C-alpha cells in the first residue's frame, strides 16, 4: 500500500503546487483588492475627494499622462501580431481501388525483386512490424508489375490528390478560388516545372496577383514550415486568405533497387494530401476551427550526421532512393530536445517552467547526477499530433514525453489507416481527434513533425469552437471501428 499512497500523495502535492504557482498573481491580487475596497468604503466619498485635491494635479500633467497612455496603447495594438485563424481543412481520401493489402504488397515485391530474396525478406519483416493496416493506398502507377512511374503518372497522382482536397475545402468553406490571396504548396519529392502551385493556379483560375510559393525538398516536416510562411505573409497582407497544401507524391519515388536502407520508405510511404485555409480576417473568427498560437522550427542541419541521416542518392546500381541512416532515432531525439527547449517557455505553465529551472540549476551547481526533469507537456496541451513517420518514432516520443496511450492514439491510428502520408499526416491525426468528438473549445493541440534536414518543427493551435462529431472527413466511414489493437508483429 505504501508506494501507491505515496505516489497519490505526490500527485496531490504536485497538483497543489502547480495551482499555487500558476494562479499566483490572482491569489495575491484578490486579498489586495479586497483590502483596497474595504479601505475605500471606510474612507467615504468626501475623504477621497480631499485626497485627490491634495495631489495638486494641473492640466498639463493630466494631458501628458493621457497622451502617454494613449501612445503606449497604440504602439501595443499596432505591433501585436494579427491573430491567424484556421477556417477549415480538407484531406484526400483514396478510393478503395488503390488499397494495398499486406499480402499484395509482398507478392508484388517478390515479383519485382525476383532476384533478391533477401531484400524481399527484409521488406516482409519491416511490414510485419510497421503498424500499417490493410487499407493504406498507393497511387495507380505503383500497382503495376513492374511499377510504371512516369512523369505523367506523377502529375496525374498530384492532380488527383491535390484537386480532390481543394475541391472539398472550397465546398466546405464556400470560398471562391478568386478570393485566395496566398498559396503555399509543399511537396518534397516531386517538383516539376511548372510547379505544383502553378498547377493549382491553372486548375482553379486564381487571380493573377496571387502570391504563390512552392516548397520542395523540405521533407516530412514541411507542413509547419508552410504554415509558418503563410503566417508571416498574413502579418504583412491584411484581410487575406491563405491556402496551404501539404502533400507527398509517391509515384516518382518508389525505389526500384535492392539496397535495404532504401527499401524502408517503400514499405511505409502512402498517398495523402491536406488543404488548409488560413486567414487573418476578423469576420472568420466566428467560424474558424483553430487559432494559430506558435510555430517553432528547429534545424539540426549544421551537424553533418543529422544532415546525412535522411539522404536521397543513387545506389550502387544507379537507382535513386532515400537512404535512412541507423542513427535516425538518436538524431530525432536530439532534434526533439532542441525543439522542446524552445517551445517549453512559450507554452508551459509557470509551475512546470520553475520546476525545470530548479532541476536545471540543481544539476549544474549541485549534483550533475540528478535526473533531468522532463516538463509535463500534458499540462500545456490537451491533444498531440505526432507525425506518423513510423511506429518507432511514435514509441520514442511517447516514452520521451511520457504520454499516455490516449494521447498517441491519433498518431497510431493514422499510421494504421493511412500509412505514412509524410507532411499531411499531422492533419489526418487532427481529423481523427475531431471525428472522435474530442475537440472542445479552448483545447490546445501540439503538431510535431520530423523530417529530412534534419528538422523538428512544431505548430501549436488553440481550438476556437467545440467541434461536434465531424462527419465529413476521411475518417467518417470507419471511425466507429477505431481504435483498433495493433499487434507488435502482424504475421503475414
Amino acid at each position, binding site marked *: 500500500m505504501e508506494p501507491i499512497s505515496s505516489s497519490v500523495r505526490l500527485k496531490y502535492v504536485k497538483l497543489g503546487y502547480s495551482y499555487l504557482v500558476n494562479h499566483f498573481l490572482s491569489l495575491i491580487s484578490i486579498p489586495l483588492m479586497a483590502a483596497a475596497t474595504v479601505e475605500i468604503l471606510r474612507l467615504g466619498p468626501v475623504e477621497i475627494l480631499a485626497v485627490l485635491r491634495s495631489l495638486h494635479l494641473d492640466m498639463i500633467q493630466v494631458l501628458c499622462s493621457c497622451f502617454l497612455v494613449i501612445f503606449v496603447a497604440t504602439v501595443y495594438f499596432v505591433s501585436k501580431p494579427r491573430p491567424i485563424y484556421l477556417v477549415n481543412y480538407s484531406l484526400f481520401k483514396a*478510393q*478503395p*481501388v488503390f*488499397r494495398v*493489402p*499486406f*499480402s*499484395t504488397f*509482398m*507478392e*508484388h515485391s*517478390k515479383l519485382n525483386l525476383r532476384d533478391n530474396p533477401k531484400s524481399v525478406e527484409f521488406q516482409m519483416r519491416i511490414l510485419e512490424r510497421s503498424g500499417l*493496416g*490493410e*487499407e493504406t493506398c498507393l497511387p*495507380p502507377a505503383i*500497382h*503495376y*508489375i513492374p511499377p*510504371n512511374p512516369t512523369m505523367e503518372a506523377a502529375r496525374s497522382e498530384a492532380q488527383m490528390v491535390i484537386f480532390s482536397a481543394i475541391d472539398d475545402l472550397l465546398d466546405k468553406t464556400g470560398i471562391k478560388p478568386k478570393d485566395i490571396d496566398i498559396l503555399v504548396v509543399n511537396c518534397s519529392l516531386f517538383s516539376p516545372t511548372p510547379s505544383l502551385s502553378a498547377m493549382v493556379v491553372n486548375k482553379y483560375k486564381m487571380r493573377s496577383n496571387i502570391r504563390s510559393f512552392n516548397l520542395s525538398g523540405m521533407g516530412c516536416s514541411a507542413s509547419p514550415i508552410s504554415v509558418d510562411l503563410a503566417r508571416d505573409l498574413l502579418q504583412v497582407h491584411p484581410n487575406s486568405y491563405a491556402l496551404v497544401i501539404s502533400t507527398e507524391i509517391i509515384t516518382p519515388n518508389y525505389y526500384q533497387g535492392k539496397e535495404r536502407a532504401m527499401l524502408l520508405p517503400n514499405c511505409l510511404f502512402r498517398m495523402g494530401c491536406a488543404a488548409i485555409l488560413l486567414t487573418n480576417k476578423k469576420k472568420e473568427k466566428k467560424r474558424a476551427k483553430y487559432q494559430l498560437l506558435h510555430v517553432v522550427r528547429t534545424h539540426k542541419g549544421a551537424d553533418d550526421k543529422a544532415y546525412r541521416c535522411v539522404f536521397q542518392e543513387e545506389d550502387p546500381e544507379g537507382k535513386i532512393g532515400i537512404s535512412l541512416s541507423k542513427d535516425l532515432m538518436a538524431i530525432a531525439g536530439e532534434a526533439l530536445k532542441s525543439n522542446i527547449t524552445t517551445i517549453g517557455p512559450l507554452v508551459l505553465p509557470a509551475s512546470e517552467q520553475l520546476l525545470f529551472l530548479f532541476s536545471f540549476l540543481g544539476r549544474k551547481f549541485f549534483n550533475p547526477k540528478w535526473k533531468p526533469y522532463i516538463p509535463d507537456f500534458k499540462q500545456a496541451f490537451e491533444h498531440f499530433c505526432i507525425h506518423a513517420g513510423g511506429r518507432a518514432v511514435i514509441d520514442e516520443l511517447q516514452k520521451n514525453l511520457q504520454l499516455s496511450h490516449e494521447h498517441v492514439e491519433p498518431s497510431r491510428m493514422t499510421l494504421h489507416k493511412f500509412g505514412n502520408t509524410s507532411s499531411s499526416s499531422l492533419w489526418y491525426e487532427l481529423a481523427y481527434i475531431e471525428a472522435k468528438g474530442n475537440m472542445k473549445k479552448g483545447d490546445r493541440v501540439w503538431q510535431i513533425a520530423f523530417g529530412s534536414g534534419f528538422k523538428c518543427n512544431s505548430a501549436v493551435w488553440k481550438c476556437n469552437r467545440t467541434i461536434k462529431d465531424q462527419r465529413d472527413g476521411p475518417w467518417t466511414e470507419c471511425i466507429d471501428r477505431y481504435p483498433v489493437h495493433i499487434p507488435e508483429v502482424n504475421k503475414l
Partner: protein
Amino acid sequence: MVNYNNKGEDEERLVYGHRLSSIGPAKVTGEVIYEPSNIDLAMKLHYLRVVYLFDKEAVEGLNLSLIKLKEALFSWLNFYYETCGRFRRSDDTGRPYIKCNDCGMRFVEAKSSLTLEEWLNLPANSLRLLVPHHVIGPELNFSPPTFLQMTFFECGGLSFGLSWTHVLGDAFSVATFMNSLGPLLKGLQPTSSPNFHKSPSNTYNSAKAVTFDPLSMKKVGPVGDNWAIDPPCEMDSCSFHLTTQQLAQLCESEGDSSLIQPFESISAVIWRAIAKIKVGSEPNVVTVIKPGPKADDTFLRNNQVVSSLKADFSVAKAHVRDLVALICNQPEDETAQIAEQVGQDPGGSDFIIYGANLTFVDLGGAEFYGFELKGSGPELVNCFVDGLGKKGVVLVLPGPKSVKHKDEGRLVTLILPKSYLEELKEELKKEWPLIT
C-alpha cells in the same frame, strides 16, 4: 507462374501492350478461411480458360475508364473474396485451403490491333491469346487462383479472358461469377452484403457403397506445390457452331424426333468419329460430365456429376442411336467415389479427371450469355480446359445468341491430340458439312 504458349512475333501483333496489376476486394475481408471440398481438390490440376467477346455497341456509353472499371471490379470482388485469396496447406494433413487475405486476382490490360469481326473469323485456338494461361505454383502462397485479362480491340469492342482454377468451381459457377459483374459495370450498386461462410460441405450422398476405383479419374504426379502436369502430347483445339436446325436434323436422323438431346447426340457423333479414326485403339471407356442439381445459392461450387461409360460393342461400327441411348441411360456416377479417393490423402495425392479418358462435358445449360453489359450479352463465349490428360476433352457449350445467328444451337470445342484432330475434322465434315 504465367505460361504463355509460343509467344511468336505474329501473336505480339495481335495482342500487345500487356500491363499486369492486381485487383481485390474493396473492403477488408478479415480472418476468413475457405476450405475446398474433396471434389474441389480432385479438380486442382485443371484450369478453365473462358473468353467473352463483346462488340462496341455493348460497351458504348459505359464509363470504362480504368478507374471506373476498377471500382466495379473491386466492388464485385467484395462478394468473391475467395478468388483473391492464396492457397496454404494445413499443418497436419497438408490439405490445401484458401486463406482469404485479399491478395488479389491478377489483372492484365492489353490491346489488340484486330477488330471484333476479325477475331470472330480466326480459328478457336487464337482466342487463347485473349486469356492468360496461369497455373498455381511453384509457390502456393504467391499464386493467384484467378487471372482476368481485358483486351481492348481496335474497333471499340473488347474481350474478357478469365483464367480459373477448377478448385474454385465448375464452368456453371464461372458463368454465375462473371454474370454478377455485368450490373456493377453498368454502375448499379450491390443490394446485399457479402457472405463470409461460403466453404462447401464435404458430405457426399451416394446411393452405392464405395467399393471400386473410379474409371474417370487417374492418379498422376506427385506434383507437390506446382499444380500443373506436363502435357502428355501436343494438344490442339478447334471449335464449330451447330445451329438448332442442324441439331434437329441430327436427332431426326436418329429416328427420335420427339426429344432433342443436343449433348448426347453431339457426343455420340464425335465418339463414333474418333473411334473410326483410331482403328485398333478405339476409346470404349469415356467420361461424361454433366451439370449437377441446380443449387439455389450463388456460391461457387464444383457441382458437376462425373460419370464413366463403357461400351461393350464396337463404337466405330455402332449406330449413333445406340450410342445416344448408352450416354443417356448407362453412365456410372462416380462423383462420390472420386470424393472418397481424394479424402484418403487430400494433401498428397494428385489426380486428373478431364482427359483421363475421352471426356465429354455438357455445358449447354451454362448461362455464359447472361454476362450483359449495355443490355446485350457477348457476341461469343468460348471455353478451354488445361491440365488435360492425353485422351482429350469435348466441350458442348451454349451457342452464341446474336441476331446474326438467329438461333442458339451449340458451340462445340474440341481439345484433342494434334496428331488426329485434322483427320477428325474431315470425318466430322461428313456428318456436318458446314463446319469449318
